[in-house]
């Protein structure tokens, strides 16, 4: 029966890094020895066989190796994992691996391409040496360019670059340089994230001394990036994501479309069969085979709207009606009208979506949208 269900996304977390970046709060630990990685992949395989062992196994149309630093696992272990799930993979499955630019990626890329990886997401963050240093990155912009070249040479034709906005001391000029650098590499996809300080990170502790751009500058940097990327032919399809037509990241779209995905590894989150669950941020627990923790029901109306409004396609009457069997509440559409007047949204026939200016205040918009739903008696 599960073969008739829509295919899901599979996320594999690699909780290791050579050096922890001072802004990052994803779950990752200092890199370990080879034997340790073997043990970790065995634990992953054990969990995989739980989900893909029986009749409930689902088809997969996207796989995402995130981290941490997935390339630390090496091409053989990546291959093993992909081999285990290969019976479930759709023909055109998008298989992405996050990599940090560095030395000797050429043979690694060749290896994983053979195993099926067809998309690379490279953490460039900035093309300015000074900014890379601020971010504690251990690579140069040149190495990132070489990594792109290596990936293409290996036959991986779908490349995404990560950029960071509002880096300490970043200016519109320096951001422009980074964007121009990216353009020359012709990536198919770009993610541009506003730097956010997270508790527990080194940046959080040092925030007073960081020379972060002021709020107004931060907004300008974001809007500038949106405009520039649009001009370069990358359309903004989500708050922080830009792509050539047809090259939107399929895996992340699953999150925002409220579709199902399974995440494996400590700190990885899943949404399957209406339920959300996650593995705690505890490597040893995961190695010991501890099961995931339930995280309540997912896919409700509020959540659906919250996620849809992250996208440029926005909240559409048709999908909403199909999923929940009712039209979009009037109060929400009235609110959309107010948003449009202030330049925060575009109201289109059959729905509405936020503009880049609207994305910048999307939390406030979403909270008000949730209040609208609640007033319409649709959520609590």
């Amino acid at each position, binding site marked *: 029966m599960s073969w008739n269900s829509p295919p899901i996304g599979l*996320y594999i*977390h690699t909780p290791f890094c050579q050096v922890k970046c001072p802004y990052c709060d*994803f779950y990752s630990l200092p890199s370990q020895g080879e034997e340790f990685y073997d043990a970790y992949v065995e634990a992953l395989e054990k969990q995989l066989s739980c989900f893909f062992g029986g009749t409930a196994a689902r088809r997969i149309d996207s796989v995402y190796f*995130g981290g941490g630093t997935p390339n630390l696992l090496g091409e053989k272990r990546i291959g093993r994992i992909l081999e285990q799930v290969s019976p479930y993979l759709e023909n055109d499955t998008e298989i992405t691996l996050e990599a940090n630019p560095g030395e000797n990626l050429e043979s690694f890329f060749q290896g994983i391409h053979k195993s099926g990886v067809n998309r690379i997401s490279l953490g460039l963050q900035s093309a300015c040496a000074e900014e890379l240093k601020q971010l504690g990155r251990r690579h140069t912009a040149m190495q990132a360019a070489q990594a792109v070249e290596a990936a293409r040479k290996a036959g991986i034709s779908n490349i995404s670059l990560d950029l960071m*906005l509002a880096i300490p001391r970043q200016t519109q000029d320096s951001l422009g340089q980074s964007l121009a650098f990216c353009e020359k590499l012709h990536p198919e996809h770009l993610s541009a*994230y*506003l730097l*956010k300080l997270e508790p527990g990170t080194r940046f959080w502790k040092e925030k007073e001394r960081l020379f972060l751009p002021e*709020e*107004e500058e*931060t*907004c300008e940097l974001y809007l500038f990036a949106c405009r520039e990327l649009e001009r370069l032919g990358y359309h903004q399809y989500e*708050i*922080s994501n830009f792509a050539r037509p047809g090259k939107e990241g399929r895996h*992340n779209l699953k*999150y*925002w479309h409220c579709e199902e*995905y399974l*995440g494996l590894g400590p*700190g*990885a*989150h*899943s*949404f399957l069969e209406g339920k*959300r669950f*996650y593995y705690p941020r505890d490597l040893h627990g995961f190695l010991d085979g501890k099961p995931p923790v339930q*995280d*309540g029901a*997912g896919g409700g109306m*509020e*959540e659906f709207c*919250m*996620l849809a409004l*992250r996208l440029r396609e926005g909240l559409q009457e048709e999908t909403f009606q199909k999923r929940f069997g009712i039209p979009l509440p009037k109060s929400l559409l009235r609110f959309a009208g*107010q*948003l449009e007047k*202030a330049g*925060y949204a575009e109201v289109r026939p059959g729905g509405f979506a936020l503009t880049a200016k609207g*994305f*910048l*205040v*999307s*939390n*406030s*918009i*979403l*909270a*008000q949208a*949730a*209040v609208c739903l*609640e007033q319409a008696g649709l959520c609590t």
Partner: protein
Amino acid sequence: MAIDRNKIRNFSIIAHIDHGKSTLADRILEQTSAVALRDMEDQILDNMDLERERGITIKAHAVTLVYHAKDGQEYVFNLIDTPGHVDFNYEVSRSLAACEGAVLVVDASQGIEAQTLANTYLAVDAGLEIVPVINKIDLPSADPDRVRHEVEDVIGIPADDAPAISAKMGINIDQVMEQVVRLVPPPEGDEKAPLKALIFDSYYDAYKGVIAHVRLKDGTVHPGDTIRMMSVGSEFTVTECGYMRATNFEPAKELSAGEVGYIAASIKAVKDARVGDTITRADDPAKEPLPGYRAVQPMVFCGIYPADGAKYPDLRDALERLQLNDAALSFEPETSVALGFGFRCGFLGLLHMEVIQERLEREYNLDLITTAPSVIYRITKTSGDVIYIDNPTNYPDPSLIATAEEPMTNAHIYTPTEYVGNIMELCQERRGTFKDMTYIDSDRVDIHYELPLNEIIYDFFDALKSRTRGYASFDYELMGYQKSDLVKLDIMLNGEVVDALSFIVHADKAYPRARKMAEKLKDKIPRQLFEVPIQACVGGRIIARETVKALRKDVLAKCYGGDITRKKKLLEKQKEGKKRMRQLGTVEVPQEAFMSVLKLDE
């Protein structure tokens, strides 16, 4: 068994705040062994938490004690503690009317203060014998001789043999009690005459109904007697009478002339046993009530609203219950566009208002929004009608007003001379008219001003304290209405008048107040999706303007590896935050914005 009236001493203690009245009362209780040491809690007469915390007495309390005097005799002391604040002047006067003497406690370093003097005059007017006591002689700055002279000069009573004591350290307390025996005359009265009992305090007890604290002037009262409240004529049957001991009630078969005790008669609310009223017997009534009764009138009004609209019935219940015990508290329902359903409440003064608000919040767990306090304005309309306005919302259109009047006070401020300049500046700012200034001694003065009541009720106390480093004291009494150039100031948010923020103000004050309010609101209203213009206007003319700029950035840029719950929680939190705000059109106003405009000087 009646007590020998010659051995009774009815007295109260009067003092300025912090001069040690309650501490002295505690020491007296201790030394008459009225309280077992294990029951001893500091300041036993101040029952309410609020009273202990603030170090003030809000309600009167009384206790009957037995003192073994040095002459070998046993004396019955009825110690009646009085409220220590100008808001409760009337209650003070009734408590004093129940006594033959008053122990005047004066701080050995601070000397006489405004409150002391005001209450001492009340006591002298009531014909009480004054027993001066110099307290806090343990302090290094104590100067008992100077203070003795001050008492003689200012009050005009001999203070040569005034005991010099330290209530805190328990020094010379026996001298105070000996002076009470010696100086305070025993009560007079005729127990054969028709009953006349003065109610000097009353409070509601869940089991016994209202318990009236009384001083019998004439006659006797027993359980089973039918009594009558002489001001209203209502009748009740006495279920119990007796003496107030330090920690319990002691029922008695009879109370008789000269004694102080309590009467319970299944009375449902204190408004049926009002302070100052006279109790007599229905079968043998007195011809005349005791003098001095008046129904207390609220002078300060404000709107009180539950922060959560659903708590409206709870607020009503709480106010009803407080009113059982507080005949001076008035309230009636009112509606505000901004704040929903609430009550217009009337108080004796600012302290009374604060006390009620605090009790509602603490004892009844209510989260409140209050509007700016208002006095009662007298408006003569062009039609000749005279109306009284205690709510700015009801203020008539200026074209309909012939004359507007506001209540005035006679105010006395006692201060070391070095602060005279500051105080005069403050009083000028508050539209005061200087009357005169007299020297209490070489370095302290009594400054007399006429001040509009509405200038006192906002934050006069705080301003006075901060400008005199706490050294000045202040007392006032109402003196009637005076013609005034009043205007109604409205605040508009995003073009809509917010009724709860309107208030009546003197025309000269409108501009600075409008500007301050607009600034304060700008400060307190958070940036939101849409820009919020704040305008203050008088009669449709905008006199101050601020803008809360639209929010710029509030975004979670990254979707944490499919951790939707984290985002959902954030959204939930933000949604809850919105619910705590008042939604006025598209503008969200936090509760504290309403409260912030009450204290504009901070």
